[in-house]
C-alpha cells in the first residue's frame, strides 16, 4: 500500500480526528447546528490544515525542538489570520456567512496535533496531503453531525444554503407541523449524537477485528 493511500485511509477512517482521536470538540460541538454551517467550517479547516502542514513541514529544519510548540502556534495563528483577511477581501459575501468560523479554527487542536505528530517529521508532499485528508475526515463527521442535529431539531436539511448559493432553498423533510426537538440543537444534543457516532465506529471496528481473528483461526487452527 502506498504512503499516500495510507495517509488518505488514516485521515478518512482509521485515525479520523473526531471518531478515533476525539480532537477538536470545541468547534465541532459549537458549529454543527446545521449541515451548511458544519460543512462550511469543515472546508475552511481543510484549507488551514493543508497550509499549516505545508508551511511547517517546509520549515521543519529551522525549528529547534525545544521551542517547536510556540513556533507552531505562531505559524498556525498567522496562517489563520491571513486566510481570514484574504477570505474577507476576496469572497466577501461568503465571508459574511463563514467569517465567524474562521478564527475558531485557531482553537481547533486538530491543527496543532497534526502539525506536531506528522508535519514536523514528514516530507512537504506527504504532510500537505495529510492535512487535506485529516480535514476531509473532519468534514464528513461534522457534516453528518450537523445534518443529524438539524434534521432532529427542525426537520429540515440544507437550511441556510441560500446564504451560500442564492436561489437554492433548504428542504423541509418533515411536515411543517413538526414541533421541533430543541435539545438536538443545543450542546447536549451534540454530545448525544457524537457519542452515538463514536459508538457506531467502535462497533464496526470491533466487528471487523472479530472477523479478522476468526479468519486467522481458520487459516491456522493450531494458533487458536
Amino acid at each position, binding site marked *: *500500500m502506498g*504512503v499516500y493511500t*495510507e*495517509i488518505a485511509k*488514516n485521515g478518512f477512517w482509521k*485515525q479520523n480526528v473526531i471518531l478515533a482521536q476525539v480532537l477538536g470538540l470545541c468547534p465541532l460541538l459549537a458549529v454543527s*447546528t*446545521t449541515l451548511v454551517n458544519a460543512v462550511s467550517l469543515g472546508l475552511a479547516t481543510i484549507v488551514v490544515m493543508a497550509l499549516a502542514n505545508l508551511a511547517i513541514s517546509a520549515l*521543519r*529544519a*529551522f*525549528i*529547534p*525542538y*525545544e*521551542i*517547536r510548540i*510556540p*513556533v507552531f502556534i*505562531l*505559524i498556525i495563528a*498567522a496562517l489563520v*489570520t*491571513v486566510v481570514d*483577511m*484574504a477570505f*474577507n*477581501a*476576496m469572497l*466577501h459575501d461568503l465571508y*459574511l456567512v463563514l467569517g465567524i468560523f474562521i478564527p475558531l479554527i485557531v482553537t481547533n487542536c486538530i491543527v496543532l*496535533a497534526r502539525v*506536531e*505528530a*506528522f508535519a*514536523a*517529521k*514528514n516530507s512537504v508532499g*506527504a504532510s500537505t496531503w495529510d492535512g487535506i485528508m485529516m480535514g476531509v475526515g473532519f468534514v464528513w463527521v461534522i457534516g453528518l453531525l450537523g445534518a443529524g442535529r438539524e434534521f432532529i*431539531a*427542525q426537520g429540515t436539511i440544507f437550511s441556510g444554503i441560500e*446564504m451560500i448559493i442564492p436561489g437554492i432553498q433548504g428542504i423541509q423533510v418533515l411536515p411543517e407541523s413538526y414541533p*421541533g426537538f*430543541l435539545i438536538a*440543537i*443545543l450542546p447536549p444534543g451534540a454530545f448525544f449524537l457524537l457519542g452515538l457516532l463514536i459508538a457506531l465506529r467502535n462497533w464496526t471496528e470491533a466487528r471487523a477485528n472479530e472477523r479478522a481473528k476468526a479468519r486467522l483461526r481458520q487459516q491456522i487452527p493450531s494458533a487458536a
Partner: protein
Amino acid sequence: MSELEQKPAAEPAVELDISAPLIAAPKEDSVLRVSARTATILLVFTVVFTALMAGTYTATKPLLDASALAEKLRAIDEVLPRSAYDNDLLADYVQLTPAKALGNDDVTRLYRARKDGKPVALVLEAVAPDGYAGRISLILAATPDGRLLAQRVTGHRETPGLGDYIDPKKDKNKARPWITQFNDKLLAEVTPAKWRVKKDGGVFDQMSGATISARAVTNASGRALAWVAERGEKLFALPSGETLGE
C-alpha cells in the same frame, strides 16, 4: 503501519534533524549560547510571520474598507430605500456618544436622509441589552416625530430555530416576517405604554415560547424612538460631523 510516524507521544525528541546537533553539541556550546540561539530563532519566526500578516493586511485593506462601506449601505437599504433620499447619506451624520436610551457602548453615527434639502428620515443604530443570549443590535429608520419607518436586526445570538425569527432572514414566515409589523408605526399613536409585545399588554405580536427576543427588540426600538422624538428636528439642524452627548 508503514514508515510514517503517527503517535505524537511515542516519538522521542531525537527524531527531528535540528535537535540532533543540539543534543550532541560540544561542551563549549554553553547553555547561554544555546538559549540565545533559540531565542533568536523564535524572534526571527515572530518577525517573519508578523510581516506576513502585516503585508496581507495592507494588501487587503482597500478591499475591506470598500466591503465595510457596502455592507453599511446594504443595512441602511433594508430600512430606508435609496429612492427616499438624494443626499450623500454616509457623509451627513451626527456622532452620538453612548446613550442609555440607545444602549450603545461605542460612539455611533446617526445618518440624516434628505430629499431636495428637506429632512426625510434618520438612520440610527440601537442595542437591546436584554436578549435571551445577550445583546441584539438593531438599525432603525425613523422620522423626527418618532415614526418608525422600518427596523432590522443586524446582530444577535438568539437560539437558532427559536428566538432567531427576529431576523427576517431566519423567520419562517417569509411573506410577512415578524419584524415588518413595526413598519410605519408612530410612537405617539401607538403610545409608549402600548409599544410592547402582546404578552406585556402591548400591540406587537410575539412567537409563543420565544417572547424574550421579541420583547427585547420591541422595547429597544420603543426607547430609541422616544429618544428621537424628544430631540426631533434638532437632530437635522446640527452641522454634519457634530458630536451629540446624552
